[in-house]
């Protein structure tokens, strides 16, 4: 058992906690992560030389972030290889670029803790300089101590919406408005579940209160119209719940509609997928302990099920204990059951958050024809619809072959959800009937030069 090579991909809360549990059992897990430092997106660290304190960076999560960072940094049984992009899985081998050099890493057991990114719906003007995802706006602040502009509009439907807006306000940025696409009615209906969910549920209210204290308008039930301007953002147009059009002057916009799992590596590993109605997206199939459908491949965190940092950490522990169990350790039962209880205890809250920030699918289906859908290759929604009308693809992979939507550098990470809605609308079916974009290696672009240097070294 001790000789099993255990590799974890991702050094966010799920991967870090899993590594700590495995190390605590006397194993030496390898942790591969693309970033220069551990933490993932949520606990992302600022670069060396920055001086802001933990509570400035992580707010309510400061204690949890500090504890996880400290424990991870202190554990020399963990082989943390930062700056490592895993771009392919072939059997029991991971192909990576480590500091730009190709390396192969072999494993016996693999834990994928690959996290999530913002889910977006294109709107007119969204490719203009000044429009960013909510997560991106947060990274600018947390990692670089920058705001994405002087005067920022935040919109969408995401737990990140009130959070990032209030972080911007607290850091001294001007927040022009916070505009939620969720109708107030739906938000209120989700309230009891949020409030019954303990601290996490209450935090959302605190952010709202902080925004209110600064007299920052928070509107519900809006519909985005366009990012205004020519060379860069000069304003944001939207219609309110009653259909009246408004324009706000701003030079930056941050938006998003919840999070979307980064599951490309699980796909290359051959894992099974299912459409999760609650999260309204394709998720990797995992059993009650985080085992995928592929023997030896385990899953944890937002890359598997969108649930946030706290749940990710528990899921990381759970997957680590599942690995230990599968290695023959019979003493993990109680701890596994405890993980399951803690995860189960958050189920109602998760459901309430999903209801409080629902994905506005009709918005995706109604993207105007002249709006760019695929920002990699500037394919418009109209061009995509025309290819659907002409060639009648039955799923998103065929639609991709016909239209190039999803074929660009991002492999459909950005345009995928909206493209699936448009296809589903054209076919008159539920979005899950439009299928799921197959992942292709490399899961992120790899520079040819990296392989050239390796070839020269080998020669």
């Amino acid at each position: 058992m001790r000789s099993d090579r255990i590799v974890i991909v991702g050094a966010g809360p799920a991967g870090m906690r899993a590594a700590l549990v495995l190390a605590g059992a006397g194993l030496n897990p390898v942790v591969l992560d693309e970033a220069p430092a551990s933490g993932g997106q949520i606990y992302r660290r600022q670069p060396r030389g920055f001086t802001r304190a933990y509570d400035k960076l992580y707010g309510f999560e400061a204690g949890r972030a500090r504890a996880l960072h400290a424990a991870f940094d202190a554990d020399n049984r963990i082989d943390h290889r930062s700056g490592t992009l895993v771009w392919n899985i072939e059997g029991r081998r991971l192909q990576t670029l480590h500091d730009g050099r190709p390396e192969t890493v072999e494993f016996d057991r693999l834990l994928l803790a690959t996290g999530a990114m913002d889910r977006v719906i294109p709107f007119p003007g969204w490719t203009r300089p000044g429009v960013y995802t909510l997560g991106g706006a947060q990274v600018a602040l947390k990692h670089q101590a920058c705001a994405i502009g002087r005067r920022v509009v935040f919109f969408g439907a995401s737990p990140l919406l009130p959070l990032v807006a209030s972080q911007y306000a607290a850091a001294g940025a001007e927040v022009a408005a916070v505009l939620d696409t969720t109708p107030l009615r739906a938000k209120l209906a989700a309230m009891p579940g949020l409030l019954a969910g303990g601290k996490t549920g209450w935090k959302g209210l605190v952010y709202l209160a902080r925004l209110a204290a600064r007299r920052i308008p928070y509107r519900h039930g809006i519909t985005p119209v366009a990012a205004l301007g020519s060379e860069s953002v000069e304003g944001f147009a939207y219609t309110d719940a009653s259909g009246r059009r408004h324009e706000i002057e701003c030079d930056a916009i941050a938006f998003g509609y919840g999070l979307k799992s980064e599951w490309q590596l699980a796909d290359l590993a051959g894992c099974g997928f299912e459409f999760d109605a609650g999260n309204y997206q394709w998720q990797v199939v995992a059993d009650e302990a985080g085992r995928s459908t592929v023997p030896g491949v385990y899953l944890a965190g937002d890359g598997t099920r969108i649930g946030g940092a706290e749940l990710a950490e528990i899921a990381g522990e759970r997957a680590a204990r599942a690995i230990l169990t599968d290695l023959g350790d019979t003493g993990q039962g109680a701890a596994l059951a405890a993980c399951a209880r803690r995860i189960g205890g958050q189920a109602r809250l998760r459901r309430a958050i999903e209801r409080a920030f629902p994905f506005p699918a009709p918005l995706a289906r109604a993207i105007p024809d002249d709006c760019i859908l695929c920002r990699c290759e500037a394919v418009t929604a109209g061009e995509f619809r025309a290819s659907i009308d002409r060639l009648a693809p039955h799923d998103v992979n065929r639609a991709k072959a016909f239209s190039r939507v999803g074929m660009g550098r991002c492999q459909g990470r950005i345009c995928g959800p909206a493209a699936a809605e448009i296809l589903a609308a054209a076919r008159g079916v539920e979005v899950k009937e439009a299928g799921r974009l197959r992942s292709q290696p490399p899961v992120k672009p790899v520079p040819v030069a990296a392989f050239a240097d390796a070839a020269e070294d080998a020669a």
Partner: protein
Amino acid sequence: MNTADVIVIGGGIHGCSTALHCRLRGLSVVVVEKDHVARHASGVNAGGVRRLNRHPAEIPLAMASAALWQRIEDLVHDDCGYRQTGQIRVAEGEPGLAAIAARRRLVEGLGYSHEQWIGPEELFELVPAISRHCLGALWTADDGHADPTRTTRAFARQAAALGAEFLTPCRAGMPRRAGGGWQVPTDRGTFSGAQVVNCAGAWGGAVAAALGEPVPIEPIAPMMLVTARMAPFVDPVVASFDRMISFKQSPNGSVVIGGGWRSRAEPDANRAHVEFGELHRLIGTTLDLFPVMRGARIVRSWAGIEGAMPDAIPVIGPSMTAPGVIHAFGFSAHGFQLGPIGGAIVADLVESGATSLPIEPFSIARFAGQAWREAS
């Protein structure tokens, strides 16, 4: 019971071309395709429309197919993205030069003149971006490339417009004799017809085996790498006599790199895996030939399942054991250019039992009994 004159198994380019040519001759056709048209090798190949460096037995067919490519738009009402950019195969060293000399003797001996020698100066003029270590090349000026998915679908669309019936997705079972003709069980009922055409690609061997004539076909998955868009820097498709590579810049600017690098095919699971184990060698060759590629980024890769024969030429012609069955499979990763003529040949065989093109070398008889093992 559903009936048709011809039941085609497989909706790749040869199946779709067969359907079109049969309809052009007034025969009723049903195409049975387990996935969708152009799902595997016909949709995911490099799109080379190439006569250059073909097996001698394939040259007459490739020449006849080239004539059809010239008027592809008349044939299928779509230009198929066909561009006559030329194809070039360079020599990078003495072995390559020797291979070119031998190739020229062979081709000229057969009376063909489509493959021309070009020296370094002409090569660098045609392909300014190519590395100056190249010593010369064979060049076929009016070869080129096309969009494989679009082409295969265009054949299907035109065949359907003329009345061919396409069953997709629909699995075909093994053909069985019924009276003087054949029955093919499918997911959508049993079809009966006078003749059956096996265009099942990598799965064609299973059909042949069921008819009592097994062949040593190997499922392969040729692999392609695709880069992010680059400003145009090369027109012709470029290959090498010294190393495995094919190199093409698409009209949209992305560069497609392949050349026979194989990854793992799982025909039973209907999957092809991309494997990068030896990727650095292909990249090394790429950079040697095109230094400009140092700034490129690989953004995608793909592999499609294809059937390869041990002698690298397809099986085309009537079954030896099952009268009324015609094979056209195992194109060994270079059947795309032959697509337009392949269907015409099969339609000839369906109609009259004979064709004017020399297809004897492709007979399935070459694998009968011990004949193949002894010959090899």
